[in-house]
């Protein structure tokens, strides 16, 4: 990603792979700038918004909030844990998936390509149910699995959620890594080889760091998309913030209030993520600027 694209100038859409071209269209990657907040029409709009918020707070029912505050906080914790663990695992998995597609033998690159195609071609919800209800119902039929040390974990729901979210992140980011590995200038690799670097050293010192550096700008968007995917794990009995809100909805029979609060929670989480990425991006030197 070039600095011009950051600045909001015309984005060179055609040159990018389709996944990247819609990344910023489907995930929030930049916070609205704080400038110009004092323009008259903005003040008027903000007044309208304030009235709306006041009406929501005043006329809607929020008496359930204190009762569930603890559950909500732990739900947010589960959501964040899901997000961070699967994004990290997924990225670690994405590196070999991208690499073998660029340089691996066919018996590695073909499965990697197939993996990406299948995961990206089917809905995450279906994959999640396939893992949890499909695979999960096959496991206990084998006494070896049932007696093994893994069974206490396989009984739980979260390993399936983590697996599905990790695969999904790995498949999308793997495609990005493939492009990133392929995009590292040949000359740099040849220069490293001319210095007498071993293949191993070349990979760790030159190729991987350069590829990761190229892929970094997509991480922001991919992570926000991953956050937006986490509520799906609530459908397999993982108690994340979405599940807590569902429970509140069922107990109180309220339709809007819990959902509005949920939307607000995700809005804040996304904003924090974006702000965090902005902070780190500013600290990473960008030579191409």
């Amino acid at each position: 990603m070039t600095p011009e694209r950051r600045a909001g100038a015309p984005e060179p859409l055609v040159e990018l792979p389709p996944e990247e071209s819609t990344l910023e269209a489907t995930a929030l990657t930049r916070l609205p700038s704080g400038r110009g907040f004092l323009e008259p029409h903005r003040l008027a709009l903000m007044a309208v918004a304030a009235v709306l918020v006041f009406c929501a707070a005043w006329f809607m029912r929020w008496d359930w909030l204190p009762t569930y505050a603890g559950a909500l906080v732990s739900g947010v914790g589960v959501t964040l844990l899901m997000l961070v663990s699967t994004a990290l695992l997924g990225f670690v998995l994405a590196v070999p998936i991208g690499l073998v597609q660029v340089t691996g033998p066919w018996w590695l690159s073909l499965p990697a390509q197939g993996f990406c195609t299948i995961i990206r071609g089917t809905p995450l919800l279906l994959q999640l149910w396939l893992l949890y209800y499909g695979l999960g119902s096959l496991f206990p039929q084998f006494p070896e699995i049932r007696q093994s040390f893994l069974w206490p974990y396989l009984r739980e729901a979260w390993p399936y959620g983590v697996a599905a979210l990790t695969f999904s992140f790995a498949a999308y980011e793997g495609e990005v890594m493939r492009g990133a590995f392929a995009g590292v200038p040949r000359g740099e690799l040849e220069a490293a080889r001319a210095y007498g670097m071993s293949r191993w050293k070349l990979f760790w010192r030159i190729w991987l760091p350069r590829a990761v550096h190229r892929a970094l700008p997509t991480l922001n968007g991919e992570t926000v998309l991953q956050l937006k995917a986490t509520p799906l794990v609530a459908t397999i009995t993982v108690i994340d913030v979405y599940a807590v809100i569902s429970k509140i909805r069922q107990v109180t029979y309220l339709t809007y209030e819990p959902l509005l609060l949920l939307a607000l929670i995700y809005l804040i989480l996304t904003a924090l993520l974006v702000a965090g990425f902005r902070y780190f991006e500013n600290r990473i030197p960008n030579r191409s600027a």
Partner: protein
Amino acid sequence: MAADLINWGLLALEPPGWGGVLLGGLMNSLKIAFGGYALGLVLGTGGAFGKLYGGPVTRDLMEVYTTLVRAVPELVLILLLYYAGTDLLNRLSAALGYGSVDISGLAAGIFVIGVVQGAYSTEVLRGAILAVPAGQIEAARAFGMSPLMVLRRVTLPAMLPHALPGLSNLWLICTKDTALLAVVGFSELTLVTRQAAGTTKAYMLFFCAAGVLYLLLTLASTLVIRFIEARARRGWVAR
């Protein structure tokens, strides 16, 4: 053991096989996807022009719309819009004296997916319009074309090649997002798959079968998209 675990007869098109039900679900998914995508394009075109050429208030409202949709999970938006959207419409029509409107699940689904897609296409189309050289639009205006004509004759055709990769990816996202309607109980492919799997207990078989259907849809879409892109790029310098 695996051999007798798989009962292929369950996938037969006629009852007692569930193949017909799955295909019916796929049809529903497709209807929602087409409808939602089309509505999304309309909203997106309006949104993109509003964001670029609208007044300050329009711009800000569009910004709020796309920011919200891009920051909140689709699942949450779908729940909110599914209940709130239809409820508001009902109250509105009741207030206007039309009585309660009858909203089918299909219409609600299309509406929900359309609103989400609308925000995405707003961003894609905005980028594409910006990629059209300003001089071309100015020239069209200088010739005295009405704004609508500029849109139809210059802006839309010129931006299309720029928008196509993004729009085609949005279509793929749209087909997959329809699965989320399973959570509100709409009988699309994922929900009927779960019903079939739950009734027959053949979970693996049905989830895999549905996966294959989704995959075929994606692959077929990719082929069509390639064809369209090749056509739209006629006359472009080969890269």
